[in-house]
């Protein structure tokens, strides 16, 4: 997910370093001939259960007592389980766990005439691209048959190379950067609309539903912001709007007076901002102070509670999109939310339903192929048609979700309210 990839840029270096030392000491410990008991003392705590579970299948709850003749295969899941978005990572893990437990509790999935059970191998990528590649390599070494993850675009992309080289299918529940599936890998899939699809929906909505004839576009020159703004521009033009001004800023800026002033001179009906909430909020406020009456619009990076917090009452009227559907309105939404609450005693944060569907889609492809071998079920995965909790899952030739829904929200009375749910653009 783009939002989080951006926010982890802010991860302070010190913390990075600490994590790193942790990793190093861990790998040194692993390669030395010290017994497992020593390992559990020397290595840092949080990743330990996952590792032990991985190296000693018997200890894992997921693989408890496989019934006669059944197989157990490993499924990898990676997300930041520590750090400032750990709550989202844990949510993803729960989503995956729920799907796997369901399959195992039903005695396993029928794959090639055998009852196959799944074992979850969950790893912490710390939202850090370097750690993500280490985690990916560990999955490959452990011969997982598929991976659900990663959470951030910034971690999903570097890891995808490793999965691709090993031929392991990867389904990301939340990475929205276009680049992820545009690398030409056969193994990359996602169950959420990407930034290009989002930009397109935003552009069409602005030009047709909001009736914007003249639009101004500002982006923060990051891969995410620029990508989204470019797609918005294309779609808005195609729908008949005129782009009267294209301005740029950076993802550190808080002063938008100069660019807003030149935008004001072009008299647009709507200003689109491609970037994050920390910039969109002051931009919205400063536009008001400069007496600009144009509507302001943004992508999922701005569709956050933080945006409302930062811009206060000036947030009113902001229109932003977010890929996916409001969780209550998903086809299997309410039932899923209730089951999730009952099982884990906590609410769904964000992506758990997408993680759940990611597992189900992988298993469905294995059933169709009659094999858990990545090379055999990969072709089935790319032509899958699956009705999941989040909606219909099928992929285009790049591995992007076809017709992924995108929801448009508007701030009303200090809250994000759903304006419209638009189908994504299938190409």
């Amino acid at each position, binding site marked *: 997910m783009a939002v989080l990839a951006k926010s982890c840029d*802010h991860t*302070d270096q*010190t913390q990075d370093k600490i994590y790193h030392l942790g990793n190093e000491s861990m790998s040194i410990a692993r390669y030395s001939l010290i017994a497992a008991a020593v390992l559990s003392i020397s290595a840092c705590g949080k990743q330990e259960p996952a590792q032990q579970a991985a190296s000693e299948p018997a200890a894992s709850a997921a693989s408890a007592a496989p019934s006669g003749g059944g197989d157990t295969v490993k499924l990898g899941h990676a997300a930041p389980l520590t750090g400032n978005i750990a709550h989202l990572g844990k949510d993803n893990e729960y989503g995956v766990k729920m799907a796997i437990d369901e399959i195992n509790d039903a005695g396993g999935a029928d794959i090639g005439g055998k009852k196959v059970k799944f074992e979850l191998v969950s790893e912490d990528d710390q939202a850090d691209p370097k750690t993500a590649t280490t985690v990916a390599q560990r999955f490959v070494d452990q011969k997982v048959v598929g991976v659900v993850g990663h959470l951030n675009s910034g971690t999903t992309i570097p890891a995808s190379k490793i999965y691709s080289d090993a031929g392991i299918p990867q389904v990301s529940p939340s990475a929205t950067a276009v680049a992820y599936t545009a690398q030409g890998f056969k193994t990359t899939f996602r169950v959420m609309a990407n930034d290009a699809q989002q930009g397109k929906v935003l552009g069409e909505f602005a030009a047709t539903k909001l009736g914007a004839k003249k639009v101004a576009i500002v982006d*923060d*020159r990051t891969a995410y912001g620029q990508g989204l703004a470019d797609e918005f521009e294309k779609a808005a033009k195609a729908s008949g709007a005129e782009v009267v001004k*294209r*301005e*740029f*800023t*950076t993802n*550190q*800026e*808080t*002063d938008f*007076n*100069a*660019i807003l*002033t*030149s935008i*004001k*001179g072009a008299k647009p009906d709507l200003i689109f901002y491609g970037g994050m909430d*920390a910039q969109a*909020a*002051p931009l919205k*406020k*400063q536009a*008001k*102070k*400069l*007496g600009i009456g144009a509507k302001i619009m943004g992508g999922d990076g701005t569709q956050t509670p*933080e945006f409302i*917090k*930062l*811009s*206060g*009452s*000036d947030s009113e009227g902001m229109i932003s999109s977010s890929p996916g559907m409001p969780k209550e309105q998903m086809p299997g939404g309410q039932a899923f939310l209730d089951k999730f609450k009952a099982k884990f005693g906590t609410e769904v944060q964000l992506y758990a339903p997408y993680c759940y569907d990611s597992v189900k889609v992988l298993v469905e492809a294995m059933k169709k192929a009659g094999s858990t071998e990545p090379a055999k079920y990969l072709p089935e995965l790319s032509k899958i048609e699956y009705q999941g909790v989040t909606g219909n899952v099928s992929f285009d030739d790049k591995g992007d979700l076809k017709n992924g829904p995108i929801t448009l929200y508007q701030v009303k009375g200090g809250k994000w309210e759903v304006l419209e749910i638009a189908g994504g653009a299938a190409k």
Partner: protein
Amino acid sequence: MDIFLQQIINGLVVGSIYALIALGYTMVYGIMQLINFAHGEIVMIGAMVTITCINLLIGAGVNLPGPLLLLAGLLMAIPISMLLGFTIERVAYRPLRRAPRLAPLITAIGVSIVLQQVAMLIWGRNYRPFPQILPTTVHDFFGAAVTDLQIAIVILSLVLMAGLFWLIEKTRLGRAMRATAQNPEVAGLMGVNINTVISMTFIIGSSLGAVAGVMVAANYDQAHAYMGFMIGLKAFTAAVLGGIGNIGGAVVGGLLLGIIESLGSGYLGDLTGGFLGSHYKDIFAFVVLIGVLVFRPSGLLGERVAERA
């Protein structure tokens, strides 16, 4: 035309903030030839303390008009910044006063990093919104939009600068500061307490910095732990542009830099046909800095170095 006027106004607002901060750099440099890189962090802490203080007052149910709340926050932030400036000088610079000039420079950078990290521990790493207590009515000024806050920022900056001129030119302390800047040893022999003068310089500079920090936070509606770095660097550029060590130079440099930046980011895109856009705004400040250093190393109003030596 109204667009041009608006850009000039934007530039004046930012420029007067730069000038206030630049004064802190230039005063310290004038007196002890030290670039106090921690000054930007004092600006940040001034902003953070004010925000916290206003939020506490609002949380406690104090029902005052916005400007008074802001004043209360400011009255809390100024002494804290003064104390901080005083402490930094005592702890980090005074022991190194006779050390090679590189040593206090490195310490200054160290102090700056420490303050940033401490601020992050106290206030977290997220952006802090500035409480919405000020009226946001927009006045029409020959087609350009101006808010009360922007007018207040420019006027308050000018008043503070005038006050500083008066202090330096007309008071006993000011005379002592000028004497110390000319030659600390001789000034000391004439009965000027050098340590007090230097402490006072830091205290005055820090209080101006705190006010500037509040202006930044109020004008852009947010503050965060890293904000001091860039704004400090810009103000330092302004000080060098005007001639570091020269009080008038800091004011001219600050206003000029603000206006150059504003016009630059407003028109650069159009002038270069979109090749360079407004995101090159920060580069502007530093191109100006390099240009000045190459062609006029002592700055626009700066004295020649030979005279000092």
